[in-house]
């Protein structure tokens, strides 16, 4: 599948990345190459094959319902710029 410039702009916006106008065409080419490479997998016939979630023979691990964590508000906000009253602060989000 070829990725066009419009798709690059859309994907960049979804990922909140700023891409300079001049880089769009190069990126479209690079992304097309990557997708083309991955698409080789489509050549394998997977009819009737169960999707594989993990190559290791392990099951999802469950834990008991116990409170074993939390109580570390300073750690939680330690990287936050300008925390207020123990909370993160971000530019006003208005709906």
């Amino acid at each position, binding site marked *: 599948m070829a990725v066009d410039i419009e798709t690059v702009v*859309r994907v960049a*916006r*979804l990922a*909140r990345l700023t891409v300079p106008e001049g880089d769009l065409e190069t990126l479209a080419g690079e992304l097309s190459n990557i997708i083309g490479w991955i698409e080789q997998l489509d050549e394998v016939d997977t009819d009737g094959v169960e999707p594989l*979630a*993990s190559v290791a023979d*392990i*099951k*999802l*691990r*469950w*834990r*008991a*319902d*116990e*409170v*074993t*964590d*939390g*109580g*570390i*508000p300073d*750690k*939680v*906000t330690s990287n936050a710029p*300008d925390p*207020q*009253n*123990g*909370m*993160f*602060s*971000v*530019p*006003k*989000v*208005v*709906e």
Partner: protein
Amino acid sequence: MTLIQGRTGDWEVVIGLEVHAQVTSKSKLFSGASTEFGAEPNTQVSLVDAAMPGMLPVINEKAVEQAVRTGLGLNAQINLKSIFDRKNYFYPDLPQGYQISQYLDPVVGKGEIEIDLEDGSTRTVGITRLHLEQDAGKSIHDQDPRKTLVDLNRSGVALMEIVSEPDIRSAEEAGAYVEKIRSILRYLGTCDGNMQEGSMRADVNVSVRKPGDDFGTRAEIKNVNSIRFIRQAIDYEVRRQIELIEDGGEVDQETRLFDPDRAETRSMRSKEEAHDYRYFPDPDLLPLELEQSWVDAIRETLPELPDQKKHRFVDDYGLSVIDAGTLVAERKIAEFFEAVAEGRDAKVAANWVMGELFGALNRTDTDIATSPVSAAQLGQLIDFISDGTVSNRLAKNVFEIMFETSDDPKKIVEQRGMKQVTDAGAIEAAVDEAIAAGAAQVDQYKGGNVKVLGWFVGQVMKATQGKANPQAVNEMLRKKLDG
């Protein structure tokens, strides 16, 4: 079918609901932080919930059990294998940049519940699915003029999203559906159903169509947090859509907000591509696999659910569907009623519970669990009525005193001399007195105005402080006046 009249004819309303219910559990879906309501900001946050790099989610077995339990209570199919996916979007209260949810393979599939309508009829509403997902944190917009503050205590708390089929046809049905879901969740103990604290909220999908047409374009009203608001939001939205279409416009498929102060919905500035969630299986989590025997063991522990109880109350006690529906809405009320009805006339018991008791509880803003009158005491009072110890009328006074003092009816009746007078001699004396005092009324009665008999009864009751047996009084009066 409920139809709404427009200028161009009748319209049918189509509603589907997504109910988000907080799972009752001590810790979060994928971390060991507490779910307790009302803690100081960010004190119930693990580094997993804060999405610190390298932190991995580990699933809480209780959350899975609660989802399965709820699925069984909704008469739904349990999927022994389900998948957690990432739903990607950016918002300040979502530190991961995605919500762990379930998309194509939810833990619970199709089910159905019965809803009770005000006219006593019932309808079946299909459940599409139930899936487990993480709650987001809380954004606080009103503490700082330029900033939004974020508290992550709720971040990662387990939610069940219960999606209905578009089977609902009116605001009333939508309200009845949410009430029934809440009632089932409370019976099961899987969600406290507390809408004020945000433990339950609903997204409401509304569209309109001419009867028989295909579905119209729907608008989704997000995050409505009370049953009254759900009804108001639907009423407003239906009107808006009908007017829009009848004026030649088209309904946009969009997300709207309900403003409770104005009882109206309005468009959330629909951000371009806001709905491109790019779901994909979460590589941090293997599929959720359940053993059938484990599911069966949960099924064994299900309580009698509201609909089963309602049918039993109708069949065994001869109650109307409406009364039975009212009594089973909360488990504690149903248990209280059954204790009162045990060995007594169930309809009389139902009338006392729903009449005097509910009235007094409402007036004093009291919960059934802390009712000053116990089921045993109310039962004794009903026994006093049936054996003639107190008249129906005085029983209401006795009840008021019971509610104030928590005393047994026996003590109240004895101490305050409220026993019904059935002694013929005492009644006759009061009747004679009333006839002697009412010469004018006697003439009216003899002149054919039988209604005046009520005046005599009133006089006798007054003279006996309401304790005379009304039937005996009536008989005695007739005998004397007619004779």
